């Protein structure tokens, strides 16, 4: 637990020190959302109908850059070897980094939402709390396997291609559930289905936050 907080603190410190990169990342997310609008629009109806899908695809594409970077800072100058010699508790390292990544994804999500509402003319039919919960569960669902996979590919030559290649098929359930839940919040949920999708997201998170925590130690030792 102490390791977790130390790692989280360290990652936040680095993100703050390199905040210009975070700004670039947010710009990337914005650009993707704008491009979706250009590719689909100017049919306002279609944009409004699929606003949730654009938001999550934008977040997914941004997440691969973010996750890759989060592990690159550990290996680019050998900091990971130093952590291993402390010796650091691998579970603490994983959960610290995964939570740091979740927070950054949430930041990207929080920036995307207003833009989605503006450019897609999206409406808010259900309680906005559901949208917040979807964002948290969805970001966490991308971050847990993403952190593990980033560690697996960090020292490989094709890491920028391999990471999305591994991550995308894995997070299909996250995208399906998060897009559905987001769309229901925006377009209305007459049949009370949001709960089911959020349950799916929660189950996914439960499985991968525990599984990846167990496997992470082996991966960083390798």
């Amino acid at each position, binding site marked *: 637990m102490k390791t977790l907080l*130390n790692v989280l603190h360290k990652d936040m410190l680095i993100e703050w020190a390199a905040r210009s990169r975070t700004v670039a990342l947010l710009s990337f997310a914005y650009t993707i959302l704008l491009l979706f609008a250009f590719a689909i629009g100017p049919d306002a109806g279609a944009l409004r109908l699929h606003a949730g899908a654009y938001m999550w695809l934008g977040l997914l594409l941004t997440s691969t850059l973010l996750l890759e970077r989060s592990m690159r800072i550990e290996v680019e*100058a*050998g*900091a990971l*070897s130093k952590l291993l*010699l*402390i*010796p650091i508790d691998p579970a603490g390292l994983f959960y610290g980094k995964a939570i740091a990544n979740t927070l950054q994804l949430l930041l990207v999500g929080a920036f995307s939402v207003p833009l989605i509402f503006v450019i897609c003319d999206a409406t808010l039919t259900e309680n906005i709390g559901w949208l917040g919960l979807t964002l948290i569960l969805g970001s966490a669902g991308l971050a847990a396997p993403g952190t593990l996979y980033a560690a697996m590919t960090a020292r490989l030559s094709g890491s920028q291609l391999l990471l999305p290649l591994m991550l995308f098929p894995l997070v299909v359930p996250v995208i399906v559930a998060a897009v559905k839940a987001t769309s229901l919040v925006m377009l209305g949920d007459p049949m009370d289905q949001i709960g089911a999708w959020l349950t799916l997201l929660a189950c996914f998170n439960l499985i991968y936050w525990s599984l990846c925590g167990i496997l992470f130690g082996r991966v960083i030792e390798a």
Partner: protein
Amino acid sequence: MARVDLEVAAHERLLIIGPNGCGKTTLLNVLSTLLRPSAGSVSYPGLAKNPRKDIGLMGHDIGIYEDLSAADNLRVFARMSDIDPAPIRALLATVGLEAGDQAVAKYSAGMRRRLALAALLQAQPALALLDEPFAQMDPGGIAGVSKAIKALPGAVIIASHQVQHAAPLATRAILMDCGQIRWTGRADQAEAAWRALHHERGEL
């Protein structure tokens, strides 16, 4: 790497020399426990049950966060290893660095190595492994690094090409060639051993 049979005493200063690709870096990585040998074993009778805590490594990748300042790097590692982070300014002064806000990414090769040595001084390892501490360094940097290495408390193993700079820091030296130890002797003879290897290969 093939056959290495080596014992290092506590507080000993050992120099490893040898041509490129002779196994110096591999040996250091094995000694650091980060690389598992495919055969044979390493034991650390003088160290704790989990020897990692007592081992410090400065490899080609020196083990820092590029985006943080020197002081922040030391602070982060101190926090993670439960060390008192108070004397950071003094530590940096020892290796001739200032505690500024500048990110390490902007440091020169010499400054980076001096920072890595400050981190080792902070961790006080019983066994410090240094891989090419003098690489890409100007004379001022070499003096600073030498001073910092002398200040390390435990046993120190240095792998280096710069025999003339590294030999004065060591007592004993070994010469490796093709993954094997070809010569063991006093550190002040290291340069002679180096010449003998070249002579044997017909390069001089």
